[in-house]
């Protein structure tokens, strides 16, 4: 616990908590529209932005936000077109993004340690300015995802119905794309490009095993994200492990615990409660 007296550890903890809360709030919409891995793709593209930033001596995070936003919008356009070659276009974007990033980082004066910081996260090097960026953008994501929940739920749940309802479907889809890009770039500092999707998706996957509704899933996923971020940083500080990896492993461990507990509970309930005969639907035809 003494470690948390150091300001850099406090910043690491606060940054992780903000991201742990914001990432699942966005991730639930991505899971619902079967885009669970989009965060990965956008992260790959963001890496090209990091490389460009390092090469041009601009803020890597800022350039990464721009690159990731362009990438996310491109993916959204491919998705909206609904072409069968969509996954190939996405593959081109993903691998082009990561190759471009590695190439540009190599061309700059940055060391491989710099690249690693973005690939796998570097919570303990968060500066006060970084923390402000994470806090402001994280809060913006949270407020948007919660305030627009009915509309974002409708558009993710049934896009055609949303169109016939007169909702601004294209704007809402682009909003989700841009929010993904922003979340990826702020989470990049915490867990790294290669582990971002885990924070967006794993808490949602854990929550939806036990919840019944969308709102309760969102609340539970945010609580789980917060828990994984907090305890992950604590584990990293006490056991001296990599913070990003620790956060993700705590999230996955929670998933396994809930999955096993849920299965056990269902078996126990089936054994203990007398099986009431399920009320069948009335017959539609008379079978002789």
């Amino acid at each position: 616990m003494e470690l948390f007296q150091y300001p850099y550890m406090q910043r690491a903890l606060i940054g992780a908590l903000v991201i742990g809360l914001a990432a699942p709030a966005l991730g639930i919409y991505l899971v619902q529209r079967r885009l669970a891995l989009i965060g990965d793709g956008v992260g790959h593209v963001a890496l090209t932005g990091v490389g460009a930033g390092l090469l041009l001596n601009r803020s890597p995070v800022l350039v990464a936000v721009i690159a990731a936003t362009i990438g996310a919008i491109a993916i959204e356009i491919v998705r909206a077109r609904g072409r069968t070659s969509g996954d190939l276009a996405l593959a081109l974007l993903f691998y082009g993004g990561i190759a471009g990033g590695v190439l540009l980082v190599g061309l700059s004066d940055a060391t491989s340690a710099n690249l690693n910081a973005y690939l796998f996260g570097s919570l303990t090097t968060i500066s006060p300015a970084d923390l402000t960026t994470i806090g402001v953008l994280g809060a913006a994501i949270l407020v948007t995802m919660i305030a627009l929940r009915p509309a974002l739920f409708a558009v993710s749940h049934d896009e055609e119905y949303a169109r016939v309802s007169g909702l601004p479907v294209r704007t809402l889809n682009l909003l989700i794309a841009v929010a993904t890009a922003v979340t990826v770039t702020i989470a990049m500092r915490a867990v790294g490009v290669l582990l971002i999707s885990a924070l967006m998706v794993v808490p949602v996957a854990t929550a939806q095993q036990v919840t019944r509704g969308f709102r309760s899933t969102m609340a539970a996923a945010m609580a789980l994200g917060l828990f994984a971020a907090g305890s992950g940083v604590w584990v990293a500080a006490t056991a001296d492990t990599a913070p990003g990896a620790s956060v993700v492993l705590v999230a996955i461990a929670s998933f396994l615990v809930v999955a096993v507990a849920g299965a056990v509970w269902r078996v126990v309930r089936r054994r203990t409660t007398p099986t009431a005969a399920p009320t069948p639907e009335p017959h539609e035809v008379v079978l002789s």
Partner: protein
Amino acid sequence: MTSPVITVEHGVVGYDGRPVLRDISLTVTAGEVVAILGANGSGKSTLIRAVLGLVPISAGSVTLFDRPLRRFRQWARIGYVPQRLGAGGGVPATVREVVASGRLARRGVLRPPGRADRSAVDAALRAVGLADRAGDPVSTLSGGQQQRTLIARALAGQPELLVLDEPTAGVDAASQEAFAGALRDFVAEGGTVLLVAHELGPLRPVISRAVVVHEGRIAHDGAVPDPAGHHAEPDHDHVHPHCYDEPAGLWSN
């Protein structure tokens, strides 16, 4: 009461150059309950999707409530019931949450739900007989109950026109009756209905006019035609797939 709600004039729709609707003209006036009938692949679902702007028409025009489709913005006047609920990515949603989506057309994106929204959702759930399932995840409902959820979602927006795509396909008898009752109430309050159906079943008494689509054209527009052949038997259970080489009957004369 005779103002046109839907007008389609010489509508043509094609997918990838293959024409699905060739030359469709159709007018639905306020208070009518129009059933679009036809075999699979006849273009009947495409017709209502074109009316709603979900598929683009390549020629002709669509007018909704006296406005060209392209400039139509009063979507709260229309309640759309798709064929089935999308599976989604597996995130659970309660029946109430799905039905509450029906209020967005009226409320807009930014305004949070208020008391009027909640009471409209309650009324819609009661109308389809699902009030006791409001808190259950939709994935635990039977196919017929999921279909009723979608109808409740459309009713929750208090529309003037209901557009339904095969609302009774694969739906159990109890749900068909509940659905027919909800539709009767909607029509009794002055609502207009356009629905696509494979067979009418308990809906038949509610329908005021039938339009038969055959090979992308309107083959019949008027009274509900009597079912032919074995379709006419009272206990005919409509389970066989319709196909193009069907024997001569109602859809292939």
